[in-house]
């Protein structure tokens, strides 16, 4: 929150995305929006509950069409696979289309030291790769960059004359990347959906870089979490509509690719080799938790980020892991452990806006509450929250004893600066300074305690 320009940029951009979504899902334009959410939740639930079956079905179908499935349990295995293949094929240049999964496993970093150039081709991702940064937002990775910053970046890293017109900056990137597409040995993509009955990978985009990544090089590797699975191609009717509308308000993105293997028969172009890497990397751990398993239904639309009043104030880089916003808040503790960032599940006012817009109806607030309970249990076990716990135990004890509660209320009221509920105070006398009170007062005034509590007034009224 320290950078007001950036703050304004996030707030404005997320606001625009909210508005676009609203226009695309209102009752006139999309009368069955709520039904689609229910359907999507049901299909995801079914798929996740029977994931082993669908993984095997998917694998059979990929292989039937000439491709190969590679199961990887973690990040190093994916890197080993890609490096091994690259070495075998004497590859030196890789082009990549946008994939949060590859960010999750730090793929680019892992490939860096092996005489392999891996270039991001989504414009926003390309820019942040040049800048050596992490993406700011699931759908808009370079949200935080101004055109002046982009101009600096292009000049610094590419040696081109300084250019601040956005359209021209885009064309510079286009020209550089086109050369890469046409020279690349391997194209690596993510997958928005894996389709079990077709052995297909579905990619949605607006730029065309995913199409180029998966059509120009001779080898295509798609890397996806195992939970991206949906059962049937026909389910795309619901999922594609929800994804586009929820993410950017588009009924369909500019390009939707349905890729099911290397080019076949007499097809003229396309890759000769097709691999789908199915990644675990902790997903099976979340899968084992029946209550929180629905976290894995996520289709990565970004709607929860755009609607979260906390995310809109603090942005993506304030989060500890690649996944930010509400979905990040529930995935991070589940993947990395509640101790990794114990404050994260508490960094929410539980307003529920995320759950309201989630296309697959993940109950994010409920999972946050579950995680909060887990954090406290862990802290109790480790003995790190003795004071806080004592405070709540005392509080609960007082709340079970009405006379004590009443006395405590009167005691607090007598300490409070005067006012009959009409006065609001900016500060309290030093004698009663307590951290929560200070924190409250740092941002707003505090009501002074009224002369009489409700129960006192009630007794007088009778």
């Amino acid at each position: 929150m320290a950078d007001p320009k950036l703050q304004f940029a996030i707030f404005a951009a997320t606001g625009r995305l909210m508005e676009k979504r609203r226009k695309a899902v209102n009752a006139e334009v999309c009368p069955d929006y709520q039904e689609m959410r229910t359907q999507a939740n049901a299909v995801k639930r079914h798929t996740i509950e029977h994931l082993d079956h669908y993984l095997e079905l998917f694998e059979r179908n990929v292989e039937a069409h000439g491709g190969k499935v590679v199961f990887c349990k973690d990040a190093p295995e994916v890197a080993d696979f890609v490096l091994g293949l690259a070495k075998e094929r004497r590859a030196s240049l890789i082009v990549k289309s946008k994939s949060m999964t590859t960010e999750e496993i730090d793929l680019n970093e892992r490939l860096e030291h092996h005489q392999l150039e891996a270039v991001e081709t989504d414009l926003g991702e390309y820019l942040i790769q040049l800048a050596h940064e992490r993406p700011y937002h699931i759908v808009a990775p370079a949200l935080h960059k101004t055109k002046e910053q982009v101009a600096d970046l292009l000049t610094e890293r590419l040696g081109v004359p300084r250019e601040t017109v956005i359209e021209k900056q885009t064309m510079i990137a286009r020209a550089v990347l086109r050369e890469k597409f046409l020279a690349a040995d391997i194209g690596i993509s993510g997958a928005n959906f894996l389709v079990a009955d077709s052995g297909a990978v579905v990619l949605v985009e607006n730029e065309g870089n995913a199409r180029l990544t998966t059509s120009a090089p001779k080898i295509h590797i798609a890397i996806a979490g195992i939970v991206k699975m949906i059962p049937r191609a026909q389910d795309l009717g619901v999922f594609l509509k929800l994804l586009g509308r929820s993410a950017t308000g588009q009924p369909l993105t500019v390009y939707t690719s349905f890729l099911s293997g290397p080019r076949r028969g007499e097809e003229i172009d396309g890759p000769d080799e097709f691999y789908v890497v199915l990644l675990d990397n902790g997903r099976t751990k979340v899968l084992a938790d029946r209550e929180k398993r629905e976290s894995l239904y996520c289709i990565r639309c970004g709607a929860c980020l755009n609607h979260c009043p906390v995310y809109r104030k603090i942005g993506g880089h304030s989060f500890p892991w690649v996944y930010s916003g509400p979905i990040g808040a529930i995935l991070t503790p589940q993947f990395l452990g509640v101790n990794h960032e114990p404050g994260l599940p508490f960094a929410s006012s539980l307003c529920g806006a995320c759950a309201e817009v989630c296309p697959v109806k993940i109950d994010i607030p409920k999972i946050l509450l579950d995680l909060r309970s887990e954090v406290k249990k862990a802290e109790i076990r480790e003995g790190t929250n003795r004071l806080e716990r004592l405070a709540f135990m005392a509080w609960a004890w007082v709340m079970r004893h009405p006379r004590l509660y009443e006395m405590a209320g009167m005691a607090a009221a007598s300490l409070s600066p005067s006012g009959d509920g009409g006065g609001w105070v900016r500060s309290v006398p030093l004698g009663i300074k307590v951290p929560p009170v200070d924190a409250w007062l740092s941002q707003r005034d505090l009501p002074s305690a009224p002369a009489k509590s409700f129960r006192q007034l009630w007794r007088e009224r009778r």
Partner: protein
Amino acid sequence: MSREHVLHKVRTALGRSAGQPVEEPPPVRLNVPEAGMEARISVFFERIEALAGKTHRARSLEDARAYAESVIAGRRALASNAAVLRESGITSLAGIESGVTDGAQLRGLAASVACGITGADYALADTGTLVMLASPQEARLISLLPPVHIAVVEHQRLLTGLDELLSILPHPAEQTSSMVLITGPSRTADIEQILVRGVHGPGEIHVVVV
């Protein structure tokens, strides 16, 4: 690499055993509305134009050729092997390469011409979408590399929308290694949320319905 390991972890997490049968998934949900051809074409064009694409209703194959000629305006172009392009005489226009079946040759041409001309296997009216299946008639890169894309769509291939496509083509993977839905010109708003067209794919598209 870790096939058994991962599958085992999945099964354990779910309490399932190998080969355990699966209940039926929720039934597929597809809504295919009724819409006459004129209505479809009208909505189709509206959607494409809203995305800054250009549209043309060709009264005849000759008309389609004339339109294509005017767009190409003497520049180099590459046409796919779609029958409609031959039938309409588009492939005989001056400066047009066609009949290419070699992948390397195709790539070289597609990367250097100003216009790519294709047919379309289907089109989707309610989103203004072209559906292209990779085949010996349609190479992938023709609708992707050149900065201008001209698509000639035979009207009987115009469906109401994605749901109708998936109803008549439930298993696209059986037909092709690549089915692409194209909805408007390539675009990005990655820098300061300002819209720029033609970032990787064509920035200009023309859809001719014949």
